[in-house]
């Protein structure tokens, strides 16, 4: 297990270097003045321009620029936003909110996927299976911002069941609607995966052997079918986090949740290139960390990895 952890962490090193390099490359290796390009149709004033030029060490050769940028990144110096706040400080304020929202959404998504997927798998081809399939596919097809707007319009504005914007009150009761929107946009792939795995696992030899031992179905299903089917669903949730990050950006923007996503959303909307790049970098690094955690969870769930 220790070897697995060490190996997994070592694998992350080239990924961290690669992803940051890729982002940096996309921004600064493009032809033309990268700083001007980041501002799009706007023009920064000289002071902003100089500050950015200094922050990104534009007077140095490209690889040196990247090295210095990495050094800054890991010493916590993430630059400043347009309004002059340090990115680090903004992160410290907004990150807990996003974490809370994401935790709510993931908990809901996972329960939905596991429960619905399990029963759809056990009742393959029956009404329940078909209904969850249709609902799932519709949820998968509706873009998250449409889902967000519809929820905001109907649930919050028309029916008044939730507040249309979250604002500064980030309690669970005030954030449930964006969390539900996020969960609904995510659960389909996990649910379908769960369903497929349940169907597959149920026909496995070891399940038949479990019945042959004299175990009743109420023990075989949770202990041998459900337990085994969780492994691929957990593994897949790593990929789901990628979708969650984009979803959180849009949802936080729509519901005005004061989180990282909203900050990125506002920066994108206003065309504040440097802030966008900083926050995307932070999100990608968070995603790398989450991938590691999911892989470790995978090892906990699957003894073939744990005792390899």
């Amino acid at each position: 297990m220790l070897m697995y952890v060490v190996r997994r962490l070592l694998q992350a090193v080239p990924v961290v270097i690669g992803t940051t390099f890729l982002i940096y490359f996309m921004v600064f290796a493009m032809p033309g003045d990268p700083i001007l390009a980041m501002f799009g149709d706007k023009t920064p004033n000289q002071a902003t321009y100089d500050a950015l030029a200094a922050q990104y060490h534009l007077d140095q050769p490209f690889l040196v620029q990247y090295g210095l940028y990495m050094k800054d990144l890991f010493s916590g110096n993430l630059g400043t936003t347009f309004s002059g706040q340090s990115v680090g400080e903004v992160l410290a304020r907004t990150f807990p909110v996003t974490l809370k929202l994401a935790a709510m959404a993931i908990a809901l998504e996972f329960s939905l996927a596991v429960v619905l997927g399990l029963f759809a798998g056990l009742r393959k081809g029956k009404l329940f299976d078909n209904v969850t399939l249709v609902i799932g596919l519709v949820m998968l097809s509706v873009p998250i911002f449409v889902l967000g707007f519809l929820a905001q319009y109907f649930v919050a504005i028309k029916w008044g069941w939730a507040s249309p914007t979250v604002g500064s009150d980030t309690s669970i009761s005030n954030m449930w609607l964006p969390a539900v929107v996020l969960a609904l946009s995510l659960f389909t792939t996990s649910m379908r995966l769960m369903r497929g795995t349940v169907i597959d696992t149920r026909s496995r030899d070891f399940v038949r052997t479990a019945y042959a031992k004299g175990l009743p179905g109420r023990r075989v299903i949770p202990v041998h079918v459900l337990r085994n089917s969780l492994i691929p669903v957990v593994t897949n949730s790593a990929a789901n986090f990628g979708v969650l990050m984009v979803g959180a950006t849009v949802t936080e923007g729509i519901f005005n949740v004061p989180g990282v996503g909203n900050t990125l959303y506002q920066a994108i909307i206003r065309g504040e290139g440097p802030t966008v790049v900083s926050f995307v970098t932070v999100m990608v690094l968070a995603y790398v960390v989450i991938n590691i955690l999911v892989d470790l969870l995978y090892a906990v769930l699957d003894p073939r990895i744990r005792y390899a």
Partner: protein
Amino acid sequence: MPKPEHYVAPFDENEMAEVDKVKLNEKPSNLWSDAWRSLRRRPLFYVSLVTVLIIVLMALFPTLFTSVSPTDNCQLANSNGGPTEGHPMGFTRQGCDVYARVVWGARTSLAVGLLATAISGVVGVIMGALAGFYGGWVDSVLSRLGDIFFSIPYILAAVVVMSVLADYRSVWTLAFAIGGFAWASLARILRSEILRVKSGDFVMASIATGRTRFSTLVSHVLPNSITPVIVYLTLSLGGAIVAEATLSFLGVGLPTTVMSWGNDISAAQTSLRTAPMTLIWPSIFLTVTVLAFITLGELVRDALDPKARARG
């Protein structure tokens, strides 16, 4: 215990079949013809296929569906107006016909979706096939590269690319921004499928006949690994259409002058409280299109799954 008697069944000469007699069905059967037969039995297949065909027609020949211009004759007097005769879905904030804009918008959304999927398909297939088939250092290098791209959610990557390329936003740059970062999942799927397929004896048999490894990859391994690729591409076509809309919604997609469902939804958000239908109509078209592609993908997956077919 009684001593068992020696029992012999009455023997009927006709009952004993010839050992290993060749029994053939009337129709030759292989994976594709079987899949096609099972697809043809699903009504949902026709529904999604017809939907896709309508959308494709709309994209190719919008004038078949509407004679109203989506951009000319927009009158502010009609701003956010409800349905009237000849304008079944009402008017946008700019006073343009919603139905006409939705019809004309199909082209952009579909173009971005197809292009982005084609790009990620080509890159993903090449990377996954080479990594899976050759293994060793080729696999190590390509898989690490895939890990890097996999670690950047492709919409976030596209946000950065499109922010930088603010002056060059077009269907092409958008398709490259999406497709250029969406290939890693496909490469992973194909790689593991190829690992499975290449362990089959027929691959060894092919090399033993004297085929080169590359020729074996192309003529035997890839054709046998392609089904998850097809399923994935059908599903990701829907994903790419959503990505275009999301990016346009965020204002880093297509220029606002280009008609697309994403741009229309984005433009309508300010009127959400007063004229929700201007947002809902393009959303419905977008959702139905994506739904049709995703459903096709699911059905094809079902039809090609040997386990699902065996159980009938």
